[in-house]
């Protein structure tokens, strides 16, 4: 008799747990669907409270999200590159006659010292300025192929620290960490992030290795400068996008490209460490 009651209670409890568990699984699916719907593929849902099979499944999905995000970013960079190549070519071809004709006209006797001169001079200066801008962009974006080698991360970070003694540095990078990267490019990316931080009025830079379940090494570089406004976050890595008066808008897009070329990635992070207001995550290949 008691045995039946116990079995009955266990059965009811089991069914209740089962229903509850299914509901929480549905909730996860719903969350991930929402994330995908918002084109955010970074769902890192926790794996506790799951059965081993489900845990494996969730881990795979988390990882898949990472891969999709990286792929999307990489495609974006590559299509920008193609577009830039075509655009610069077309712009240069289009400015050539404008520059040349206005220059010829400036040399004409019937133009000199007339009201026409100022206008034509403005046309000439503007087209010259445009082609110089495009030229400098081309120069910076024409990167050399990276030479990947196993490099010690700590000395490289220390190098960058020494270049900016006016900042206070908090570096937590173990000295035995080796990454597979192009030392010059990686240094350039770090310096670029530091320069941006200084322009955002930062006084402190935090560099730390972040523990994450990932086959790559995650390096956080954050600062206590002005936070990045939400409306700018989407466009941050788009070439020519800038919020600075004198900026060209190529620093971050170029840095991301350099990271991709080294088999890594550069992202903005949501989560900040040690009192930082803005931070970036570098994904680095490990040997």
């Amino acid at each position: 008799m008691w045995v039946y009651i116990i079995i009955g209670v266990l059965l009811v409890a089991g069914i209740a747990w089962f229903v509850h568990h299914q509901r929480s699984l549905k909730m996860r699916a719903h969350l991930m669907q929402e994330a995908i719907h918002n084109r955010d593929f970074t769902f890192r849902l926790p794996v506790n409270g799951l059965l081993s099979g489900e845990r494996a499944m969730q881990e795979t999905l988390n990882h898949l999200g990472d891969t999709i995000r990286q792929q999307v970013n990489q495609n974006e960079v590559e299509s920008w590159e193609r577009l830039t190549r075509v655009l610069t070519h077309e712009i240069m071809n289009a400015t050539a006659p404008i520059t040349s004709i206005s220059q010829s006209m400036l040399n004409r006797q019937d133009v000199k010292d007339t009201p026409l001169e100022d206008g034509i001079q403005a046309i000439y200066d503007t087209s010259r300025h445009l082609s110089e801008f495009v030229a400098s962009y081309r120069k910076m974006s024409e990167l050399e192929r990276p030479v990947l080698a196993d490099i010690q991360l700590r000395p490289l970070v220390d190098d960058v620290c020494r270049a900016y003694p006016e900042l206070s540095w908090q570096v937590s990078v173990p000295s035995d960490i080796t990454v597979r990267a192009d030392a010059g490019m990686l240094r350039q990316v770090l310096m670029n992030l530091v320069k941006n931080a200084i322009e955002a009025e930062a006084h402190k830079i935090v560099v730390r290795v972040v523990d994450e379940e990932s086959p790559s090494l995650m390096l956080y570089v954050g600062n206590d400068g002005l936070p990045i406004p939400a409306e700018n976050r989407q466009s941050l890595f788009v070439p020519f996008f800038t919020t600075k008066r004198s900026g060209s808008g190529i620093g971050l897009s170029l840095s991301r490209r350099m990271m991709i070329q080294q088999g890594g990635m550069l992202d903005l992070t949501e989560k900040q460490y040690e009192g930082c207001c803005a931070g970036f995550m570098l994904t680095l290949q490990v040997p």
Partner: protein
Amino acid sequence: MNKYGTILIVDDNPSILTALRYCLDTTFERIITLDKPDDILKTMAQDTIDMVLLDMNFTLGVNSGQEGLLWLRTIRKHHPQMPVVLLTAYADVSLAVRGLKSGASDFIVKPWDNDELVRKLKDVLDMQGEIVSLDEMEVEHIRRTIDHCHGNLSKAAELLGITRQTLYNKMKRL
């Protein structure tokens, strides 16, 4: 003012042709423009041309410059002495170098500076008219042959069809 004869300009962009006509009309006596490269040889057969200014890209969307190189070789084949200056898109140095190797006299990068363009074209034509003495030719030829053989004098002498001793004697005069 000393004018520089007839120049043939080939570019598929009419604005570039206008710009060049505008820029060069005080330097050249006559400017012939073509917007299609197919008529180059016909025009060169009909008129006396002193130099050709040739664009590298003609097909829309194709920026490889192969077409320009092809036309350059065609011109050089039919008129080996004709100076050809190439108009190349920005940041295409490797293409320009290939053009020079295929016999172009110089290259101009778009967008150009008018004064520099005129100076380059004049230089090419001035060089063309220069008569080099036989001795100078010989010295230059020997130098190039030795370079070609990476300094191996026996091989250079063999290629030049003279004995090693003769080559030595000639080199003493360099």
